[in-house]
């Protein structure tokens, strides 16, 4: 780490500059010197230094003023104020102005070492923090929304446009198309990204449970409410609430939800205190909400309140060109999570995937690839590793001999090439099976 840290020494005394420079160079730091504040600021115009050691008393601009100017340029810079004439006033002022430390010359070598080590540790923590933040943002980014098709590009563009606003969004699409991923992408690209994204699966909860889940409850509100509990709207304060399967909520909950969306305030179940929360609402459904409005099962006013922006995710069958990219993405994802070597997919298997309907959309494809990696040979995903593979293989058999060969091979594999057990299963004697193995040149694979 030491070699990456750069230090600027600002002192009008040459002997101090030389001594410090010599000391820090021996520690492996990159060191530059300036004899006055003007030269230091000039150097700082050209490049950044991790640590700046500045003397207070210098001809022209003093170290305190220089410190203020450095902080105005870069709030994160670490400035250590040095002085041979320490006073409480200057020390307090320096620290108020944001100095990392205030030290009196001459220093004890051990104190100086610790000081620089602490500063270096802070720099390291800061850069680590930035890297982790970037990583988290990237992870939550549009990472899993893979595709280059026109349909998915349109969705990505919509996400980008809508993320910066606080408007309500309804995401529609068939099951497994990635509605929650889109919601996450909107949240992680919005200014609310450092606050929580709270997901509620409305379809999985009964009316009373959903009410308690969304609004929270006070102790004793109902049987089993043994303590106060925050609701999801309260938890989402500053962030986003994602209501999945919004079409499943009851008429009563629709009224309650409409009121919360209008006032951004609510009362916990069993409580009487009004709670306000600043959240953004993103909903998702695989049903046609407009038809539900027309037939009276979904409130029109709630629909228009939620449907400020509508993002429709196309089903996978309408973006077949994305399948190879998605397959590669899932192979990479699961090989990495299973700590396996990266594998490929045979062209025949990919071709079958491209012609498959995928009623379960991307989720179904993902599950297929995960399963194929688990049961496959660890080198390549074969057609037989896919659920539709056996059917495809069988349907491609034309001759009776070929069918017999494959069936015998499957039985042999099933019984671990135990000829006696395989012959019994096939209801033939062992000699017949040996003859068939010889005839079809069947060999046990490694």
């Amino acid at each position, binding site marked *: 780490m030491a070699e990456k840290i750069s230090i600027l020494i600002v002192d009008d005394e040459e002997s101090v500059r030389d001594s410090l420079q010599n000391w820090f160079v021996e520690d492996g730091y990159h060191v530059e010197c300036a004899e006055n504040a003007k030269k230091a600021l000039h150097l700082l115009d050209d490049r950044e230094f991790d640590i700046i050691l500045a003397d207070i008393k210098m001809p022209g601009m003093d170290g305190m003023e220089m410190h203020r100017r450095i902080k105005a340029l870069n709030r994160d810079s670490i400035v250590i104020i040095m002085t041979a004439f320490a006073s409480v006033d200057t020390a307090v002022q320096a620290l108020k102005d944001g100095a990392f430390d205030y030290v009196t010359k001459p220093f004890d070598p*051990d104190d100086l070492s610790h000081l620089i080590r602490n500063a270096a540790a802070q720099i390291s923590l800061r850069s680590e923090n930035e890297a982790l933040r970037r990583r988290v943002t990237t992870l939550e980014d549009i990472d899993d929304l893979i595709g280059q098709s026109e349909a998915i590009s349109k969705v990505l563009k919509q996400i980008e446009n809508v993320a910066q606003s606080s408007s309500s969004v309804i995401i529609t699409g068939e099951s497994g198309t990635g509605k929650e991923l889109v919601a996450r992408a909107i949240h992680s690209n919005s200014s609310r990204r450092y606050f929580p994204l709270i997901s509620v699966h409305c379809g999985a909860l009964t009316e009373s449970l959903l009410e308690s889940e969304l609004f929270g409850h006070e102790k004793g509100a109902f049987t089993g409410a043994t303590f106060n509990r925050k609701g999801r709207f309260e938890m989402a304060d500053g962030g986003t609430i994602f209501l999945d399967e919004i079409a499943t909520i009851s008429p009563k909950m629709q009224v309650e939800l409409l009121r919360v969306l209008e006032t951004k305030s609510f009362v916990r179940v069993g409580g009487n205190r009004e709670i306000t929360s600043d959240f953004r609402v993103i909903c998702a459904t695989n049903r046609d909400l407009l038809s539900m409005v027309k037939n009276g099962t979904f409130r029109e006013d709630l629909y228009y309140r939620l449907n400020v922006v509508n993002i429709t995710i196309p089903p996978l069958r309408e973006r077949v060109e994305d399948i190879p990219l998605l397959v590669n993405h899932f192979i990479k994802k699961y090989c990495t999570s299973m700590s396996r070597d990266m594998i490929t997919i045979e062209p025949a298997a990919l071709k079958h995937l491209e012609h498959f309907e995928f009623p379960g959309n991307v989720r179904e494809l993902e599950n297929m690839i995960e399963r194929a990696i688990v049961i496959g040979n660890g080198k390549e995903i074969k057609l037989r590793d896919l659920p539709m593979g056996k059917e495809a293989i069988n349907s491609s058999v034309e001759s009776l001999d070929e069918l017999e060969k494959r069936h015998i091979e499957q039985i042999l594999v099933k019984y671990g090439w135990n000829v006696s057990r395989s012959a019994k299963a096939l209801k033939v004697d062992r000699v017949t099976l040996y003859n068939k193995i010889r005839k079809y040149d069947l060999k046990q694979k490694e």
Partner: protein
Amino acid sequence: MKEKKIILLSCGPFEKEFLGKIALATGTEFNRAVIAEECYLDLAPFYSPGRRQYDGNKLLHHLPECTGREYDKLIGLFKVDIFIPILTFIFGQAVLGEQTAIASVYRLRNELYGMKQDNDLLLSRSIKEVVHELGHTFGLIHCHVSTCVMRSSTYVEDIDQKSSSLCLRCRTLLEEGQK
């Protein structure tokens, strides 16, 4: 080819045996001939009355004038307390990759810290300090390996924790630097 040698300049009343042992250990570590040479240096011009110590920077710059011999590296060993303007004291001083270094045994003595005199410990600390400062003249920076002689030591117990030898990495860097 001219022999590469290190001169260990005795800038104080040191016993010959003491200097000889330091020279031997240093020579072994750097694989060079080390010549111990006495020097009669008037330290008065280097004294800082305000600090009641001797200016290490000035001593370092003056040291080459104290020998008439040719050398590859030169280290002056002092008995007085030395400082550099920014630090309260130093055990030694060198300029990275240059020819000259200084070291002082003043703060290596047990007696300074109220403990019983220990000549063996003083010798061991002095060897480590001389090897450390000479390491800097060969371009070696401070090392993070706890037993390496190039580990930074800001108080005397630090010196006792490390060995008098270079770690494998520093030795490799030393050998690469000499090619």
